[in-house]
Structure formats: C-alpha cells, structure tokens
C-alpha cells in the first residue's frame, strides 16, 4: 500500500525539481518570460520592504517613492508615504492604484506570485537579494546604479566598508571569542542560527553565536540556554512592546550564568542588526562594543 504512494510522491518531487526558478535577482522577467526594461528615471517607485525604503532614502531617492509597506518606518519621513499593505505580503490593488513606474522587492521574501502579477499589469519589478554584509553592500550599489545615484551609493558603501574593516581589525587583535546568546523571542525562547544577518554580525564583531546551526530560528528551553553558559546575553526589541526589564530580571535569577555574574545582559534595537541596510555597520559597531568593551 505504501509503495505506490511513495512512488507518486517521489515523482512529484522529481517533477518539481525540473520547474525552473522564476525569480532571479535583478529585473524580473515579464509574464511571457521576456526581458523587461525599467524606466530610465523612475519617479513613482513603490518599495515592498522596509530595508529597501531605508536604502532608497539613504541614496537620496526618498522623494521618488510613491508608496511603501506598513512596516516602513525609517527614516521618519517614510511613515508619511502612502501605504500598500503588509510586509512581506502587500496588497495588489493598492500597489496598482498608485500607478508606479517601478517596484523594488526582496527575492524569496515578497511573494513571487504577487511580483508576477505586477508584471501582468505592466509594472516593472526589480528584485534584490541581500543575504549578508557583502551582498547588502552590493545591493546598495545595485540600487544606486538603477536610480542614477552611483556616487551616493559608493560613498555609503565605502563608509560601511571602512567601519566593518575597523571592527574586524580590532577584533583580530584578541583571541577571545565570548559566547553570545542573542534572544529574539521571549516565549518561547528563540535565537538565531547560521545564515542570518545577526549570526554574521556576531561572528564579525568577535563573538561566538551559541545558537549556530542549520535551523534559522531555533527554539531553546531555559535549561538548554543554561547549559550553553553564555557570557553575553543580548535581547532584541523585535518583539515590540514587551517589557524587556522583566526578561532581564528572569535571567538574573540564574546566578551561575557568566552573563549574569558579569552583568552582561543587554537590549538592542533589532532594526540595526536585522535589516539589510547601511545601518548594519552601526549595528555591528554596537554589538562589538557590547561583546568586546575592552576593544571599543
């Protein structure tokens, strides 16, 4: 009985592997697969991600934005932009209603179906894929080229780059790599695994991400965290509106933890370490300061 079923499952998986991935970084192909050219100087841009909105403003192109998502909140001018719905799944009707001449989206984050449908309405979509520090900087440069703001972009990236290098060189001077537990979820306790922005920042700023591993957002029980004996505990404000003090006090009850003994429990703004924007450099410096206060 199981044999034919498993055969069918395998067949389907095999078939699906043959279905080509339809979304590469760059200009999204049209509905028939044809190459699409964006406008030469787009002035009605709709950004489909908070990080993209930030980058556009930092490139000096904020005034060319016609719309952004509900979560686009930095810089503060972004809050005043017409909203196109939630992130990562905005509302098609609202986007179309703004008559954009270009949409900029995040690959594998904004729904591919939506991006394709935008194409059928004749709206060009540009897709970026920042996965870590270096690709974030590439994205900034890419968008700079796209929007005729290359000089600005190069300046931004140059600044980011030198700040990152500065942190790296100082960290290289010491061999100590304190164990860091970065908590993004309170109940249950959730941390960050490998291949995330936060993981990279922790590593670059001279720490050891204790939650490293294949699971991107692993869950921990209190016991498991205690067993890891973190020297630094960082709690992010991604869980907005919660009482961070309460969380810190809960950790303080476990006096055996090095982090508690040395009073190294901190709270940071998650946007600084989780959004692929120029502010990552700031986030990196901040983390470095918390992990290696003796160096910074």
């Amino acid at each position, binding site marked *: *009985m199981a044999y034919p*079923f498993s055969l*069918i499952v395998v067949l*389907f*998986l095999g078939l*699906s592997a043959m*279905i080509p*991935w*339809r979304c590469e970084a760059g200009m999204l192909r049209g509905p028939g697969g044809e190459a699409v050219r964006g406008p030469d100087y787009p002035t009605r841009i709709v950004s489909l991600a908070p990080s993209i909105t930030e980058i556009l403003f930092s490139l000096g192109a904020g005034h060319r934005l016609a719309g952004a998502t*509900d979560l686009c909140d930095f810089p503060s001018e972004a809050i005043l932009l017409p*909203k196109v*719905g*939630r992130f*990562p*799944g*905005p*509302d*098609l*009707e*609202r986007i*179309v*209603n703004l*008559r954009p001449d270009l949409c900029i989206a995040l690959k*594998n*984050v904004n*729904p*591919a*179906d*939506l991006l*394709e*449908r935008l194409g*059928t*309405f004749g709206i060009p979509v540009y897709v970026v894929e920042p996965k870590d520090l270096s690709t974030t900087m590439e994205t900034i440069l890419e968008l700079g080229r796209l929007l005729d703001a290359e000089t600005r972009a190069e300046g931004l990236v140059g600044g980011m780059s030198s700040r990152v290098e500065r942190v790296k060189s100082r960290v290289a001077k010491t061999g100590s790599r304190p164990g860091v537990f970065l908590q993004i979820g309170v109940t249950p306790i959730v941390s960050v695994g490998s291949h995330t922005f936060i993981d990279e920042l922790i590593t670059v700023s001279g720490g050891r991400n204790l939650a490293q591993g294949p*699971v*991107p*957002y692993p869950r921990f029980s209190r016991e498991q965290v205690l067993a890891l004996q973190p020297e630094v505990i960082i709690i992010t404000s991604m869980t907005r509106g919660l009482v961070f003090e309460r969380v810190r006090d809960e950790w303080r009850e476990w006096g055996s933890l090095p982090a508690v003994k040395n009073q190294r429990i901190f709270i940071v703004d998650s946007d600084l370490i989780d959004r692929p924007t120029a502010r990552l450099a700031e986030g990196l410096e901040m983390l470095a300061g918390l992990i290696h206060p003796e160096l910074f």
Partner: protein
Amino acid sequence: MNHRVVKRTLNVSVLLCLVLAASTVLGLFTGSTGQNPWEVLALITGGGDPDSVTASIIWRIRLPRVLLASMIGATLSLGGLVFQTLLRNPIAEPYVLGISGGSAVGAILGILLGLSRFPGVASFAFAGSMLTLLLVVSISSGQSSVRKDSLILAGVMVNAFCSSIIMFMVSLTRDSRLHNILFWLMGDLSITDQKQVLMLFGVLLPCFVVLFLFANSMNLLLMGEDMAAGMGVDVRLISLALLGTTSLMVSATVCHSGLLGFVGLVIPHLLRLLFGADHRVLIPACVFGGAAYLVLCDLVARTLPAHGEMPVGVVTAMIGAPLFIFLLAKSRK
C-alpha cells in the same frame, strides 16, 4: 408535467441569483482602494475609460476575485449538502473525507519548494487531496455499499494525521514561506486572474450539472439505502459518482483558495431551513446562495480591517459558527 417542483426550483433560483448579482456588484464597488463609485458604475454599465487604473482594478483584480469567491462558495455549499446526504450526517462538510488534510500537506510542500501558486502549488494540493481520498476510501471499503461510518472515521483520522504533518512542516519553516502557508491555511482569495477563473469554471460547471441530475436520487437516499434501492436507485453506483464528483470539485477549489471552513457546513442547513429538503430545489439554492454568501464574506474580509485584509476563512468562521449554533437551536424546537 407537474409544475410544483419546477416552479419552486425556479423561484428559489431566481431569488438567490438576484442576491448573488447584487453581492457581485457590491463586491466590484468595494476594495482596499477608494475608487470613484461613479466611475465604477460607468465601467460596469459599459462606458467609462477602459485604460484607466480604475478599469484595471475593477476588471483584473476585483472581478476575478469576486468570481472566484462565488464559485468557491457555490462548490463548498454544494459539497457540504452532498456529503451531508451521502453520509447521513448533519455535521458532514466538504473536507470531511480527508480532502483538507491532503490538500494542505500537498500545498505546503509546494510552497516550501518555492513553486508559484498556480499551477505549482495548486497541482500539489490537488494531488494531495486525491491521495488522501484514495486512502480514506480504501481504509473504509466495505462490501456492497459505501460504508458511511467507517468513511467518516477514516476521514477524521486522516485529517488529524495530516494536521500533525502540517504542524511539523510549519515548525521548520522560515519567515517568508510561513506567511504564505498560514494565509493558505486560513483561506486566501487574493491570488487569482481571469485565466484561472475560467479554468476553474470549466471544471466546476459540469460537476454542478451532474450533481443536479442526481438530485432526486439524493432525495431517495435520505430514506435509507435499502428503501432507495427498492425504489430503483443503484445505491453503490450513485454513491461513488456523488463521492467522486464532489471530491473532484472541492479539491479543485481548495487548491485555488486554501481552506475555507464553515461554508459547506452551515449554508446547506440554512437553505434547508428556508426552502425545505428537496434536493431539486436545494442544489441550485446552494449554488447561488453559497456563492452570494462567500462573496459577501470576502467583502467583509476586504473592507473591515484598517490595513490589509483579514483572511476570508476568519470571516466565514466568525459568521458561520454563531449562525450554526442559531440553526441548531432553531431545529431543536
């Protein structure tokens, strides 16, 4: 030719058709952006500017969505009616034989593999539901007749098992896909275009016709299988035909819209209360009435929340559950 039933069927159908038409028009007027109602009116009545953004939104976003909602509402209501009669169980609903579990597992698999909603995820969902249906029927297969109680039991077990698989898959998922998955599980009518709507219609219309032809046989089935057989109904054949047709059409809609609860459960009871139990009247009533109901629920889902939209499944549950309790209380008297 006696006109009693014909007249009644026509009256009910026309009435509900009008309700459906009104809901459809209302659906075109409402959306997440405020379009000028006069412009919308002009477009609907044949005038207006066909190249405007308003025209784009009305014809290519709102209309396909409203049509999809009406087809799904019709299918789920009709599916609920057929299963309630076939399984002789008043709380049977179109997903009861494992269709929801199987299609959800298939769809989530498709979403995790990064496939597009249509045809990728849709075909996975369809395959999943057909597989679980096969599983349910083979688990419960009896001798001469389709054994009802074991069907329901098998369906419940398979659905429960699939739920655990789904929860497992969800726990492994990262953010972006999770959003997609949750919206599918709660019913999502937003991803559709004219082509898909037409294809779905092509599958559903024959199913509706076939089920209508079996209307009188379903009346007879309510008298018990032996008595129905004694009056000339080929019980086994008709049961299989009803089962197959209904599962096909319900699966086809699930893979477009995800899971929408309470429609198939509540609407048949409501219409039975209003129009009687004759299937020759109820089947068209479920088609038009169920369609209107979901169009209206989708309307609410689109306009109620301040930002974005609520999943339609939430609205159907919020309206459907109290409605069902009310109908239950009424039937007790």
